[in-house]
């Protein structure tokens, strides 16, 4: 049993390839998380313009990409775009799919955060001469982000997990590399390694999230 799932020789042999997968997963996360945050912030800022001509298309956009399964979106981009004469490669497709999908989720979180800041805050800021943008930047956003920090972190956790979808379009991230190693060694040990690594990088985030959530609860009391 241990020989099958936790074979030491195989761990040693698969180490470099799994590590390179880990590195790519980290790299991918460092790209898609800021990209999603950025996309989400833009969506939320647009939503704060309460004009119907902005609001309705925006809602449609956000709804659409939240309803669309991210795996399907990714495969569609990867397999479909070449037929439109656009060959982007796996990495770019992952980046775009995440920008669309997780950006919409982040956008809803930011929007809820902005809505949670009382209107009196903006009025006070505007009454001292701050512009709409300055009031947003210095007064509303800092409070908005603080109010939804647990949700932002929770979504980020999901995003990091979702980077494993990259394996489907041959992005050499952790899961993909582990499967490569598995097929080379005819042994599941590399997959177990990947599972353990996922757990090790995500667990601290989960702990942090629990603490934030508890603090938010205590603050509300």
């Amino acid at each position, binding site marked *: 049993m241990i020989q099958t799932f936790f074979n030491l020789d195989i761990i040693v042999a698969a180490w470099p390839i799994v590590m390179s997968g880990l590195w790519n997963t980290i790299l991918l996360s460092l790209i898609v998380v800021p990209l999603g945050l950025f996309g989400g912030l833009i969506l939320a800022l647009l939503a704060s313009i309460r004009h119907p001509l902005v609001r309705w298309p925006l809602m449609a956009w956000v709804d659409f990409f939240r309803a669309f399964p991210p795996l399907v979106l990714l495969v569609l981009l990867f397999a479909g775009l070449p037929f439109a004469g656009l060959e982007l490669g796996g990495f770019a497709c992952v980046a775009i799919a995440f920008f669309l999908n997780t950006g919409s989720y982040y956008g809803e979180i930011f929007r809820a955060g902005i809505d949670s800041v009382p209107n009196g805050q903006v009025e*006070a800021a505007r*009454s001292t*001469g*701050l512009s709409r943008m300055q009031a947003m930047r210095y*007064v509303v956003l800092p409070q908005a982000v603080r109010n939804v920090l647990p949700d932002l972190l929770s979504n980020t956790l999901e995003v990091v997990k979702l980077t494993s979808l990259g394996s489907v379009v041959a992005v050499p991230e952790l899961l993909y590399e582990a499967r490569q190693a598995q097929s080379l060694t005819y042994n599941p040990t590399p997959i177990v390694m990947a599972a353990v690594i996922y757990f090790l990088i995500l667990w601290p985030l989960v702990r942090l999230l629990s603490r934030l959530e508890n603090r938010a609860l205590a603050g509300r009391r």
Partner: protein
Amino acid sequence: MVQKHIVEARGIHKHFGPLHVLKGVDLQVDERELVFVIGPSGSGKSTLLRCLNRLEEPSSGSVVVDGIDMLDPKTDINHARQRIGMVFQSFNLYPHMTALGNVTLALRKVAGKSRAEADTLARKALERVGLADRADHTPGQLSGGQQQRVAIARSIALEPRVMLFDEPTSALDPELVGSVLEVMRSLRETGMTMIVVSHEMGFARNAADRVVFMDDGLIVEQGPPAAIFENPAHERTRAFIGQIQRH
């Protein structure tokens, strides 16, 4: 030459959808004057104040403050608003900043002061409201009365020509009201022009030059405090004064 009013609002109407909230209000305020605005809840007092600095867009009418046409689209409204301080019932301090940060924000971002200049001016303003020693406290660490005084400091640091107060003491515990009124009184002594919506009758009697009674979107009558309180000309004013004095 005719004395120019520092605040000159004429024919202000304000609709919220089907609701006709201001029905043609004229308000002129002289420099250094303290005008008290009283009236039943919902009569449009807050809306009137908010039209003066254009937090609310009047449906029609004109507002000129310190020679600036507030409703002209060409007016730089953010620049104009620096000259009109506003104090709110619920303080509206920025909870994520210290008292000092609350006061310096507009000094730096609107008035264009350096951090050092802004700090100096903000500390001076906090000193004027008696809170020099609370500069590094966040609003959550301050009492309601202290918060409202920081809010006043946030406005006066910009050296406004006019100050608008919208029920500045209504959200305060009775024992904290005095400290805020004290600050307002000292502000008055420096010659600040003030428009105050409040039902602090004692303060009005002592400090106000004029009391304006509003009802149902209109100014019903106005005059010196003694005249309005002792000898109102209108039945509605009489009824309202009687009501709040019974409290």
